[in-house]
């Protein structure tokens, strides 16, 4: 029924990159995430699936403290990156976000040129010593974002002038340019055609060699193709978390089964 995973799920005994314990998230009085505990592994692609509004984006944003920018949002519980509690007072969210990059659900290019969009992160973090190095970083990032061929002749054009799908890939390129250790991607392929989707999936697979990737998706096929681990969210609860192959072929929870066979959601 579903496409077979691209490769055997060869998840060996891997180290935990991000660990969450009993995480609760409230928006004012709304309880958006309830008791979520999960271990996200290093050098692994994890996909978050679940019906719309179940809290996938909310939980994703907890992992790099993006929820700090929402006044009414409150996060409880413990989330640690490499064993270090990221909500501890001493932790600088700015440093954290440099390590845990994010691609947002809606493409949000800066009103700057395509080049400056990608160069933004590397410049801030002083990753290039000179212009040539920066050029190299930008080109590499745009190539990984599968958009280089389309924009190489107009790097000075505003990023906001690109099509929706191109903007999405530009944002992916912008996020990988800073070389984060963990990349959080919120529906990165929602506006992409099958060719670009395949390219982005290739990128995700490539990133897995070095980093840990978390991807939110509404496409079961995509989750099955790119991820080794899958987490199913429902109404703010983490219902089931396990090997992708196991979730899709042999789910333990009846809600998971209903969702992946298309009965809820």
């Amino acid at each position, binding site marked *: 029924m579903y496409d077979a995973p691209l490769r055997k799920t060869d998840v060996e005994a891997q180290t935990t990159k991000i660990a969450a314990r009993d995480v609760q998230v409230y928006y004012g009085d709304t309880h958006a995430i309830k008791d979520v505990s999960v271990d996200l592994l290093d050098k692994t692609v994890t996909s978050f699936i679940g019906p719309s509004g179940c809290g996938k984006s909310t939980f994703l944003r907890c992992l790099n403290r993006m929820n700090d920018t929402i006044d009414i949002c409150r996060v409880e519980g413990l989330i640690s990156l490499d064993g270090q509690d990221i909500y501890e007072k001493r932790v600088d969210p700015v440093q954290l976000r440099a390590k845990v990059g994010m691609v947002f659900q809606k493409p949000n290019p800066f009103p700057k040129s395509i080049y400056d969009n990608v160069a*933004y992160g590397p410049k801030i973090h002083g990753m290039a010593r000179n212009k040539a190095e920066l050029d190299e970083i930008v080109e590499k990032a745009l190539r990984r974002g599968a958009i280089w061929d389309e924009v190489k002749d107009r790097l000075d054009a505003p990023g906001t002038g690109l099509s929706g799908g191109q903007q999405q890939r530009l944002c992916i390129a912008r996020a990988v340019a800073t070389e984060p250790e963990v990349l959080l991607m919120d529906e990165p392929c929602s506006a992409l055609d099958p060719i670009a989707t395949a390219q982005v999936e290739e990128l995700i697979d490539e990133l897995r060699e070095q980093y840990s990737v978390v991807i939110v998706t509404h496409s079961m096929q995509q989750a099955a193709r790119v991820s080794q681990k899958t987490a199913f969210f429902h109404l703010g609860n983490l219902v089931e978390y396990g090997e992708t192959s196991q979730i899709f072929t042999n789910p333990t929870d009846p809600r998971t089964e209903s969702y992946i066979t298309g009965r809820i959601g």
Partner: protein
Amino acid sequence: MPVTWLVFIVLALALAGFVAGRVRIDSAAGAGRPHSLPNYYGWNIAIKVMVPAFLVLICWLIVQPFVVNGAVTARLGDNAVPDGSTIGLVMSDVRRVAEGLDAAVSQGLMGADQASDLRTEFTNVRDRLAEAGVALGSNVTPQVLGAAQTWRALNANGMLLMSVAVTALALAGLVWGYVQTTPDFRARNTVENALRIMLLAAASLAILTTIGIVFSLIGNTIKFFSLYPASEFFGSFTWSPSFGGGSELGIWPLLWGTLYISVIALTVAVPIGLFAAVYLSEYAGPRMRAWAKPMLEVLAGIPTIVYGLFALLTVGPLLLSVFGRDGLGWMQAGTAVMTAGLVMGIMLIPFVSSLSDDIINAVPQSLRDGSYGLGATKSETIKQVILPAALPGIVGAILLAASRAIGETMIVVLGAGAAARLSLNPFDAMTTVTAKIVSQLTGDADFASPEALVAFALGMTLFVMTLGLNVFALYIVRKYREQYE
């Protein structure tokens, strides 16, 4: 009173038409669903009753005085004008007598017939009108009294005609709309159209007024340049009006003062206003914001004369104590370019901050998220993402503030002194275009002399300058607007 009554009559007809339209369409509903909701049929009639009737009413009220004035003037003829007077002066006597008669009649001191039969031979009109509270400068001549009586008669006839015309028009509109009220009639579209035209009319009126202002300036400016050479006005570096004639009216000293003070004001207002805006929109918590933003805006509500007093009584003496003879010795008196510039800068702070704050808030949150998500700090995000995105709007705000600074008058009158001079020292007294417009027009000068008319040329120059600034501001804002959705 009759005009008020007329308005009520038209309104009552409109209401009746509205109700009649609804009732008619409701009772016709048997023949299938009407094209529009019942209220639209009602509005269609009400609009047809009100709009033409009120338009005619307004036009009539505007035109009638001119017509009556013309007719009475023609009837008076030249022989009614005594030596050393003009027809205009006589006509203003006529109007005054006519008003006096009106007042006397309405106070019951005279019957209506008596007022129109009054003769100077038998009655001391001046005394009678004084009883009614209308004081006349001289005795009333027979011609003037006669003309005043004609005036009243014509006016009364006009009012009567107007009442008839307006009522008839309203009734005609009612009948027209009522006949239209059938289920097939597209009342909704008609009302939509009517609304569009009304909105258009309001917009055009605003624009026409602006054009009218410009033309009234242009007329007098041309008159000035026919009396005084433009090459002198724009070429001379001296401003020394003397009402005896032979004055030099060069604009440069005034323009220099205006620009100097504006630059100082903007140097104060732009950084402070901008920083305040950034703090309010990016750093302040909601409670701080709710408290501080209105506080800042209170500054914008202070009348400029109060700022002027502040300059004169507080800032001037303060500066004088530091830079004056007892201090550094650069300053002669409290009124100086610096005084006015500083106070004007304070006045402009809320202007810049409030506009910029709105503009910064309009930058989408997703851009901030994008920047924070890449590991940027708050100030990096502000400097590299938010301010560039908001820049066109901020430039627009600054240019608007600049045009306020150029047009500001009271602070300059009180704070900058009155001497027109070209000097580089910011502690010298100088004056501006606006301040001189005031002083040229409030003097005793003959209104037809170049010394008074120069005010219009100055006003025109200011108008062109601020217009240019505003157009430039709009251009900047437009050009960069599409940068974020």
